[in-house]
């Protein structure tokens, strides 16, 4: 492997890792607030991608403008989903049943996408789709930089909301200890539903970023949910910094392994990391006490 190719792979890995980090943060947020494994997260990701594509095809405007619609829309769907569906499940079997329920939602989304837009693969055509700029002697596609920028911006906003606002404090308190949060007067039900909405909003941003430079089709979400779930287990269920760090590490590793191993084998890095984590440290490398028991 030459140094140029190495650098190229490293940059691609970082750009990919950024997107993984954003999406995994959303996934781990649901788990933090509700102990829910949201299988439909990546289905919403693809839904957002389709909405961005449809928006561009219809209006001819840049797909990123569709975020003005999809982000609030997804936030609303998330809040409603938590209030109307997730809270209906019995607390005793919440984690297991929520997996099945969100799985069902994923199937419905996939089916409706196929029903509406057919199974044909779609790709947004952008004027800057094939252009690239040189960074440290490596060619980097402009769309990938834009997608990374979008993911980084969203992740930064998420961090800001969690760290600097009173809602964020309430949310973190709910994640850390729900009963204690209730005792100090936090309306955890409301916080949880907003947290759910926030998680789904990351899928809106992620989906748009994804659709900028990739082909989308209805069943694509299965290819995303595996790596994302591996990331949140490795990072420690419920830990957002853990998810972000694990996402970046695994994204870069995958990209670097692509050269010697090929694309398919390189994807197994997520699962190898998942199994190693379970054998060595089942609660995840950055997680707290939550992971093993749920």
């Amino acid at each position, binding site marked *: 492997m*030459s140094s*140029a*190719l190495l650098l*190229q*792979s490293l940059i*691609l890995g970082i750009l*990919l890792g950024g997107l993984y980090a954003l999406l995994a943060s959303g996934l781990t947020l649901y788990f933090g607030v509700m102990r829910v494994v949201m299988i439909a997260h990546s289905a919403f990701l693809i839904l957002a991608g389709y909405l961005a594509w449809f928006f561009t095809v219809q209006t001819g405007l840049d797909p990123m403008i569709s975020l003005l619609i999809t982000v609030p829309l997804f936030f609303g769907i998330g809040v409603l989903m938590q209030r109307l569906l997730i809270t209906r499940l019995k607390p005793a079997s919440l984690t297991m049943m929520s997996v099945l329920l969100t799985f069902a939602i994923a199937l419905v989304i996939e089916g409706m996408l*196929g029903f509406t837009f*057919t*199974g*044909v*693969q779609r*790709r947004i*055509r952008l004027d800057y*789709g*094939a*252009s*690239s700029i040189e960074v440290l002697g490596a*060619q980097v*596609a402009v*769309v*990938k930089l834009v997608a990374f920028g979008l993911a980084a911006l969203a992740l930064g906003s998420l961090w800001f909301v969690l760290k600097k606002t009173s809602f964020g404090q309430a949310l973190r308190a709910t994640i850390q200890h729900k009963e204690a949060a209730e005792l100090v007067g936090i309306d955890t039900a409301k916080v949880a539903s907003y947290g759910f909405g926030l998680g789904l909003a990351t899928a809106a941003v992620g989906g748009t970023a994804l659709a900028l430079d*990739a*082909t*989308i*089709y209805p*069943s*694509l979400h299965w*290819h995303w949910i595996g790596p994302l779930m591996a990331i949140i287990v490795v990072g420690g269920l419920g830990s957002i910094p853990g998810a972000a760090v694990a996402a970046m590490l695994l994204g870069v590793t995958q*990209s670097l392994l*692509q*050269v010697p191993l*090929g*694309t*398919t084998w*390189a994807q197994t890095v997520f699962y190898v990391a998942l199994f190693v984590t379970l054998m060595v440290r089942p609660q995840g490398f950055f997680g707290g006490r939550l992971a093993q028991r749920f």
Partner: protein
Amino acid sequence: MSARRLTRSRARGAAVVAGAALLLTACSSGGGGGAEEEGDDDGPIRIGISLPLTGDFSEPGKGVQNGYEIWRDEINEAGGLLGRQVELVILDDQSNADRVVADYEALITQEEVDLIFGPFSSRLVLPSARVAEEYGMLFVEPAGAAEDIFAAGYRNLFYAAPAVADTHYDYLFDHLMSLPDGERPETASFASMDDPLAMGAANGLKAKLEEAGVEILVDEIYPPNTTDFSGIAAQLAEADADLLVGGTQYQDGVNMILAVRQLGYQPRMAAFTTAPTLPEFVEAIGADKVDGIMTPNGYSPAAEYEGNANFVEMVMEKEGREPTEDEANAYTVGQVVTAAVEAVGCAEQGDCQTELVDWLHENEVATIVGDLRWDEAGRPNGAHFIQQYVDGSPEIVLPEDQATAEFIAVKPEW
């Protein structure tokens, strides 16, 4: 689409019957098909087809459907087959192997169709060919060029196109070898989808190039449904081979080209399977970026073969453009079956099918892709043209006696 609606109501009957049969033993033989039409010489000849109208192969699948329908319309206008009207019974297999088998099973045993035509894509041809073989049905197919299919040794299978996958690039290879030393590519890179057709053509060329001393720098296989080509493109760009060969279907070809363009890789020659033969390709890549891209193509609208001018005219009238390779291959299936049915004088299940198979093994059929003759396993005897984009439109460049434009030896930048 009256044929489809008919199918649905019948299939519903089938499912209900299946349910009833499992729940109540009372339901007895005959199933949902009933004692209709069979052996009836005046009713329409019903032809069963399973096609991927949704799923991974839905794009070319629709081309095949269009080709079949054009053949049906033409033959019905001319008074039908053996004087009977032709009716297509089309089921959707969603590009799934398990569905394609269930579909042909239902078409043959439940619908009791008189003839069947093949589905699209080598992956789906293989399992459905076995169903046809075990029910003793003639199986002429438009899209299974891969060697695996013929290796299975089905006697009733015939590929209605000029050549099998391994030989698709033969004209290109011969031409490359005839070039003088400086112009002949010295290095080549391959990236292929793990699909029998896409890989078959690329591997055929690769073996010949290797033997001729061309150095293979990259040889990547990626699974169907790969969408991120940046890793593969990085390797292709790093290797910087003279010749880039992509064993592609449709969208992966477009993605690969965009990904290597993002990295500024400018090969001297580039060839891809399938994608460049589809009309959407130019729009997806950009009319100013396609020049010089090559593809093997089993069909040329300009070729002076039996009925071709007529076929081109019908497609122009219906679609407002020239026929695609998939449409032509599907139409060819119709021509082949027509020839056999008219020669033997029957079209029904049973012994008639054996006679049709025997006839095709012994005779040559004139089609829009040339005169076809098959070996014992159903391999056709012809060769593929090499198509290249010249000034934004697809032209046949090889072999030279069929060429509509001059071969571009150094591809313009993309």
